[in-house]
């Protein structure tokens, strides 16, 4: 989410939540205070969280799927037709050189294949995967387990007090700033 409070060089702030309703309250409170530019961590896809963060904006992955499908149907048509036209004297079964009914099968398969591959590509582009180089504050195994999190990677230093107050007030069980946001697994 882009925002006024995000600065190129800012402070990391992380709030860890044990309860979903507290997390949602935290997101709403931050938004109502005009504070944006945070990422939310969750161990599962909950539509309430996605709706709260993305406010109904659909993922652009759908465009990748559509373009992939359209590319596929055209590739299927061109592959079958152009290769047949190279040998127009061969006419199996008395069918026309460019015969749409049998080629429809290849066109259909190419539509699905290209649609799926473009969707995978779109997902990779928009999710930012591979995410091996994500900021360490986002790499919190607790949020793959039982906890949720709100993370600011570059919050304005002037907003630090306000943000930590909102996180605590909404029910965060742990609020950390700076390097403390990087979670070390005990006994790891």
């Amino acid at each position, binding site marked *: 989410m882009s925002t006024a409070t995000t600065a190129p060089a800012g402070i990391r702030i992380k709030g860890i939540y044990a309860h979903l309703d507290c997390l949602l309250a935290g997101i709403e409170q931050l938004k109502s205070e005009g504070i944006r530019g945070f990422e939310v961590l969750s161990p599962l896809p909950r539509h309430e969280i996605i709706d709260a963060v*993305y406010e109904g904006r659909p993922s652009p*992955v*759908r465009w990748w799927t559509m373009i992939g499908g359209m590319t596929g149907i055209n590739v299927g048509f061109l592959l079958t037709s152009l290769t047949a036209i*190279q040998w127009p004297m061969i006419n199996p079964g008395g069918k026309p050189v460019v015969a749409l009914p*049998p080629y429809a099968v*290849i066109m259909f398969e190419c539509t699905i294949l290209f649609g799926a*591959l473009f969707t995978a590509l779109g997902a990779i582009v928009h999710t930012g995967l591979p995410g091996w180089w994500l900021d360490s504050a986002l790499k919190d195994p607790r949020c793959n387990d039982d906890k949720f999190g709100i993370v600011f990677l570059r919050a304005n230093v002037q907003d630090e007090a306000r943000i930590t107050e909102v996180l605590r007030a909404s029910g965060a069980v742990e609020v950390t700033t700076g390097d403390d946001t990087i979670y070390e697994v005990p006994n790891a």
Partner: protein
Amino acid sequence: MQGTENPNRPATFGEANRDIIRVLLKPSMGWAALFAISTAAMIYGGWCWYLQLVYGLGVGGYNPPVMWGIYIVTFVFWVGIGHAGTLISAILFLVRSKWRTGVYRASEAMTVFAVMTALLFPVLHLGRAWQVYWFFPYPNQRYLWMNFKSPLMWDVFAISTYFTVSAVFFFVGLVPDIAVVRDHSTGLVKKIYGVLALGWHGTMRQWHHYMAAYGFFAALAAPLVLSVHSVVSWDFAMAITAGWHSTIFPPYFVAGAIFSGCAMVITLMLPLSYAYNWEKYLNLWHFEQLAKMCLLTSGILTYAYGTEYFVGWYSQNPYEWGIFYWRATGEYAWAFWLMVFCNCVAPLPWYIRSMRTNPAVLFIISIFVNIGMWFERFNIVVSSLAHQFDPAVWTSYWPSEIEWGVMIGSFGWFGFWFLLFLQVLPAVAIAEIKELIQPPTKAALGAVEAK
């Protein structure tokens, strides 16, 4: 095991994580024994194939005009097995069916490995396996291209697309779960799972686009369930051979594929649920739903078998009626009646609820269905070719030891990959199980404390 919709689900997301990944990388004696048997079968199959490569296809039992034997029979069998996985993972996802959650990951793995197995057979059937690249369009100096009007070419595209889409869909579904395994591992294992998890950390940016992509994958995979086996059926139905040239083949093949696939899911996952003590995730309720799917598709198949005979008789086409009459009374009558028994009669006890929820009955009937569906393809492929238009070319075919060896090897190959999967990847979809768990909320906690 219980047979209810709502068994003792885990209380927390963390409990689901630990419960499902606790079985990874800890091979039991039973697993090791099955893995050894599968590997041995695979090696034996590989040896038989080697002999076929050295001495040629003459080592098979081919007897012209029966030039399609059990390689094609087993190819169609494995493609069919794959269909249940896509049905469960894609179509049941789109209709938000709850019972898919426990079984879909292993079913999807079954699909990928079954199609991997099926893909071996066109290569085996070729004889000159090194010329397999002729299947695919590639630019060459002579401008030679394949005939895209041929159903066999449609099949190449259909199966390759099916494998690619299924494999991508399978891996995409696994990514968040692999991240869970990574977070519960240490050392080199953590590094390997870290690479496979692609840096997944459950950020909302990741979930938002991931869920959108997953929905589109499901929407793209769903028509494949119907199209792939329809295309496979056209390998036969587009030929003028009596017993093959029929418009009912596509729905008949699709129903058969779902029937055999659901039965195979029962065969594989019923023992698994006991071995891993996964009652919370996989219980008799899930298997009951699979049995109902089998009952529906068994009914469709029975109707299709009847329709074939009705059309053969009513058309008064002597060739059509000749093959169907011979199929039920001739040399392969035993295979025909075995098919009828396994596919039409054996599933009938599942109409009684206590039979659908009895693990032993479920397992035994599922084995009958697997056998019956293999013989269905045997009847279609072999009996039609052995009894064509001209009585002068009527003949018989029986697979040679080499062909049986290769077929046994294919089961070993499938078992090898499936057993390996059970040890290294979560066989139950953790992220989706979490969606069934009541999320922790302070409001609910307050209500409990108030009580």
